[in-house]
């Protein structure tokens, strides 16, 4: 099947949906195809967000303060042109989203603004817009445009290129197993993050596939795009006990007045502490033998000054901004034997992948180094530097989603559609059907090996020997396991087949990440090298990955600094 699009948006989470809306609005004569791996507007990570979203609304706050906070917490590795755009455009994008129907937690007539200690912001700036209502508002808005063509249950398998230009993509229709070619004048990549490369991740808490398998980074890499800071993972706590999700440990502690204590009951850390340090300090506590039997530390809610009623209210907000009563009811049902949250000692371990700061290199128009190819949201790098400040992911995706849509539409209005080569598509189809064979190993077994090696060597703490071992293991998986992957010969909703398509992408992404981590011989933000524990002035630059003659080349690129220099400069 051939679909002809003017603008192709891959991924219909917050960034992709927002891009499609903007493209359709700015150019009503363009045909905008919005491709998504699940039902459009009902899947992906945006719906899972627990609602913290920063934009300037407090009377003492300013976009400049927002800008400074993001750059400071990002350890100055942010491209400041991007941060400035985000801080300046966030209020307008947020107000617009609320007009479209997103619910925001109110405190009487004004916004409820979370405790700035949770994120480290200089002013109260975190609004609670639960991901479910955020995405519902975007979905409704997408529906309003007749020129948006939402295609649910499609997975993109490759980008089509012609010289230095992206001209479309190949995809698989998950519903019937049919191969699809989409020819597009402009293509927006909005495929989200890569948390699934680790054993513990908030992106797919139950280990389900496809939510953040990082395929977008691999598609961009294979097409020839540049990727920056591929070592910069933001980790959070993986909850070990109780076995039902209570929300981000940083939020839990700041909102419920809990304390960070080790297995000996000693308070080893106080807020505010940036997210990267929360991870590092917990890791050091456990390494020094002060961790629990399960290998974790605690957030002790019993020391909180809050009443049971107050704490339950805060927990509901931490879970999903109060409006998700269903989730709270679930927690209550599961904790029926010990219902008072003040008795809870939440046990957690560092190393749960939460967000990825690196990604496809973009400018403030969301353009990449390939013509007609734009990126927005988590798959794009440079906005959050080496560490993302809490509450800025939901902000990032609508600001840059809208920009990607606007500039992609602008490009598509004057560009030609270039016909794809049938041979390329035929090869791709053969590659995909090559997974049908009588004998072999499951894609899940390879996927699990990738996740294990990444958690072992690319977690909170990294060092040279481990990273080199990781590269060797990736190489061995590529040579020995990849060719043996087999899936059942079924056309409709063949989930192992989708997993098999994801695995080679995951290997590409893992290699980019480990290679970048090995090259950055310093510690900064989410990248902590035990063998290079200091932050080096000379490393105030991006790592940069690019494909050259079918080989992965890792270099560096300057950081865009417009006005804020690290202290001491």
């Amino acid at each position, binding site marked *: 099947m051939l679909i002809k699009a003017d603008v192709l948006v891959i991924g219909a989470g917050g960034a992709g949906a927002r891009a499609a809306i903007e493209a359709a609005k700015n150019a009503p004569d363009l045909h905008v195809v919005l491709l998504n*791996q*699940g*039902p*459009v*507007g*009902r*899947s*992906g990570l945006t*719906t*899972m967000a627990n609602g913290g979203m920063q934009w300037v609304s407090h009377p003492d706050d300013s976009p400049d303060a927002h800008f400074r906070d993001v750059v400071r917490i990002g350890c100055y590795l942010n491209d400041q042109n991007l941060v400035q755009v985000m801080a300046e455009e966030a209020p307008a994008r947020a107000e617009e989203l609320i007009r479209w*129907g997103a*619910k925001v*937690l*109110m405190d009487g007539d004004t916004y409820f603004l979370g405790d700035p200690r949770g994120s480290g912001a200089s002013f109260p700036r975190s609004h609670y817009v*639960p991901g*479910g*209502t955020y*995405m*519902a508002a975007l*979905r*409704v808005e997408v*529906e309003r445009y007749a020129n948006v063509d*939402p295609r*649910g*249950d499609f997975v993109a398998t490759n980008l089509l290129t012609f010289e230095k230009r992206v001209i479309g993509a190949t995809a698989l229709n998950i*519903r*019937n197993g049919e191969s699809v070619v989409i020819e597009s004048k402009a293509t927006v990549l909005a495929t989200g993050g890569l948390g699934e490369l680790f054993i513990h991740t908030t992106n*797919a*808490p*139950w*280990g*389900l596939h*496809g*939510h953040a398998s990082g395929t977008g980074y691999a598609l961009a890499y294979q097409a020839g795009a540049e990727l920056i800071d591929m070592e910069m993972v933001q980790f959070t706590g993986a909850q070990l006990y*109780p*076995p*039902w*999700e209570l929300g981000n440990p940083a939020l839990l502690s700041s909102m419920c007045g809990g304390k960070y204590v080790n297995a000996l009951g000693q308070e080893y850390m106080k807020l505010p502490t940036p997210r990267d340090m929360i991870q590092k300090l917990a890791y050091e506590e456990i390494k020094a033998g002060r961790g629990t039997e399960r290998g974790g530390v605690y957030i002790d809610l019993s020391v909180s000054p809050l009443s049971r009623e107050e704490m339950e209210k805060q927990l509901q907000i931490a879970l*999903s901004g*109060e*409006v*998700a*009563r*269903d*989730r709270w*009811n*679930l927690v209550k*049902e*599961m904790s029926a034997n010990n219902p008072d949250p003040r008795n809870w000692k939440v046990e957690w371990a560092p190393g749960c992948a939460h967000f990825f700061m690196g990604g496809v290199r973009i400018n403030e128009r969301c353009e990449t180094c390939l013509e007609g190819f734009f990126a927005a949201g988590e798959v794009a790098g440079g906005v959050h530097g080496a560490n993302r400040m809490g509450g800025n992911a939901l902000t990032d995706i609508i600001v840059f989603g809208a920009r990607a849509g606007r500039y992609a539409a602008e490009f598509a209005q004057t560009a030609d559609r270039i016909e794809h080569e049938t041979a390329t598509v035929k090869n791709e189809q053969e590659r995909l059907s090559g997974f049908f064979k009588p004998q072999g190993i*499951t894609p*899940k077994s390879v996927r699990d090996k990738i996740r294990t090696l990444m958690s072992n060597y690319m977690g909170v703490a990294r060092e040279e020997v481990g990273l080199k071992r990781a590269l060797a293991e990736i190489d061995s998986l590529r040579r020995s396991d990849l060719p043996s992957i087999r*899936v*059942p010969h*079924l*056309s*409709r*909703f*063949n*989930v*192992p087949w989708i997993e098999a398509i994801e695995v080679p992408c995951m290997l590409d992404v893992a290699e980019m990440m480990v290679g970048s981590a090995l090259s950055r011989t310093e510690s900064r933000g989410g990248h902590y090298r035990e063998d290079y524990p200091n932050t080096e002035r000379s490393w105030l630059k991006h790592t940069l990955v690019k494909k050259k003659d079918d080989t992965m080349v890792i270099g560096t690129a300057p950081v865009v600094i417009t006005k804020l220099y690290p202290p001491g400069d």
Partner: protein
Amino acid sequence: MVREQPILLKILRYDPGVDRAPTYQRYEVPWKEGLLLLAALKYIRENLDETLAFRDYCCQCGWCTSCMMMVNGKGLRACLKVLYPGEQLMIEPVKGFPVIKDLVVDFGVTLTTSEGTFRKMEGALIRKVGS
């Protein structure tokens, strides 16, 4: 430690492109504290039957309703359904939509239509803050 009673799931299987009629298949899933129906289905696909189809590309936290299915005849979200030791459940695709395979339906028009329609479908899922 006493071994808890496993969960018994009787699941409707149907591939409209291949099967003449739907059939039911029984699976036994070991119980553990905090087990939810969606996780039990994942267990089946990873350990017992790789061909079982259900919508797993979903929010996993009660928002998106992609995992709606009939549980003992009642429409529920699998990600919010707590399982108890020894429970026996009949699992079928959510009523009112064409079946793509097994528990996966085509929400089709409902997903890509007016605000009113999906709000009706989601019902209590979207509430006003504070209400």
